[in-house]
């Protein structure tokens, strides 16, 4: 086992330590950077900003607690933007594990800052099973699928829902998701009812949805924590995502370094062996 082989098979816990340090260090020495805005993030912001005040927007909490670091800042920044524009917000979720609880808590926290009234300014529809039928069903009648809201109040008793019967009464759908539900919002709702849809997704899913932005089926796209930081900047709603970017940068450099050094150890190891064999 020459030097290169030893370098190539370093015990993985040393590498874990290096990653941990790269994320903790910026906490001690805060690093702030200028965040550049991608055209796709600007397109989403401008589409929401162009909406006339007090128009109805549907905000969906289609993410599991496992990806809140990327998705929650997007939902929070969107809510700041929408409430500042006096838009009426209808929230819902297709995620059975935690979806309704997170939709309730995140929306009420931001609504309190703009002293919005539940029932007239915002409503949380919560969760109903089988998202295919939910997405398709709301096309004809939201009340058929959701007889009551997340807390059990009948929809007929909520003033806001009197004006929102189905997608025709919704001006924009802002989907925040960590799974393929975005593809179904596009292929069921946008394709059949024409409601414009913008999406904030985790970085794992983002590359796939460029195809929908390109075909105009998606109006703008946020990708990962950087996408959230971009929307926070655009909507002037500074939050967690922007603070995280410093730590993100150092960790990326560590990973890039790992790939390069790993490959050097691999190739150098092979050349030195070839050298001996000849």
């Amino acid at each position, binding site marked *: 086992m020459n030097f290169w082989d030893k370098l190539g098979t370093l015990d993985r*816990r040393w590498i*874990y330590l290096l*990653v941990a340090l790269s*994320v*903790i260090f910026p*906490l001690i020495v805060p690093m702030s950077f200028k965040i550049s805005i991608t055209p796709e993030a600007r397109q989403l912001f401008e589409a929401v900003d162009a909406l006339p005040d007090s128009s109805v927007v549907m905000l969906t909490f289609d993410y599991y607690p*496992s*990806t*809140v*670091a*990327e998705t929650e800042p997007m939902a929070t920044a969107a809510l700041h933007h929408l409430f500042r524009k006096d838009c009426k917000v209808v929230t819902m979720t297709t995620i*059975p*594990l*935690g979806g*309704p609880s997170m939709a309730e808590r995140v929306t009420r926290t931001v609504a309190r800052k703009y002293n919005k009234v539940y029932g007239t300014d915002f409503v949380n529809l*919560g*969760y*109903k*099973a*089988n998202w*295919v*039928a939910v997405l*398709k069903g709301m096309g004809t009648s939201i009340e058929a699928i959701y*007889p*009551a809201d997340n807390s*059990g109040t009948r929809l007929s008793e909520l003033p806001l829902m009197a004006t929102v019967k189905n997608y025709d009464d919704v001006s924009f759908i802002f989907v925040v998701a960590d799974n393929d539900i975005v*593809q*179904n919002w*596009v*292929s*069921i709702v*946008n*394709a*059949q009812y024409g409601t414009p849809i913008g999406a904030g997704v*985790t*970085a*794992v899913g*983002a*590359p796939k949805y460029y*195809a929908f932005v*390109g*075909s*105009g*089926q998606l109006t703008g796209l946020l*990708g*990962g*924590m*950087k996408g959230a930081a971009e929307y926070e900047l655009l909507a002037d709603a500074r939050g*967690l995502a922007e*603070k*995280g970017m410093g*730590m*993100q940068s150092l*960790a*990326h450099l560590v*990973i890039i370094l790992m790939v390069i050094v790993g490959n050097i150890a691999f190739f150098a190891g092979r050349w030195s062996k070839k050298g001996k064999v000849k």
Partner: protein
Amino acid sequence: MSSVEIIQIWVAAFFTLAIFSFLYKDNPFYKLAEHIFAGLSAGYYVGLIWKAVIIQQLWDPMLAGSWWLVIPGILGVLMFARLWPRISWVSRIALAFVMGNTAGIFLITQLHGIVLPQMQSTMLALGGTAGFASALLAIIVVVGVISTLIYFYFSKEHTGVLGVTARVGIWFIMVSFGAHFGYTVMARISLLIGRVYFLADQWLPSFSQLF
């Protein structure tokens, strides 16, 4: 910070560290956290379906007169027959009803909502709309889409023109997967940042309250 908040943060911190401990090696703390997690998630589903389906979609509407909803209710209960192999065929009707409906919706949305618009948006003028850059982009997109579709074509040997197109396709696919790789790395690090931020921003300051 009130004492309730401190308890909340310490409970959350305990379970966060219990899961992280798996990095060192599998241990009783991780096993305990894992099993509690499985139980709480199952319990969450019970609370959710009890409220969202049984009360809001069955009990209340039936009380208000929509008695026919007893039919989907019975179909739903029949679903439990899947748990006992001997009578699992009873659940087939309920399963077929849901799967058939989803299949009917998907059959339309995959063709009308994905294939048609994606085909249409690939019909680009190779001259581009404004100058050289947009022409280059149009050519890249057109060549990329066609070569990817040909790469995943299985009814003819990849030889001759087809072989060359497939070869070009694999290069395009590697660039796209490289982008996927970069984005996925970014995602996992953001999730780590989220947890480290919780520990540093909420848990550590709570020490000053206690000691």
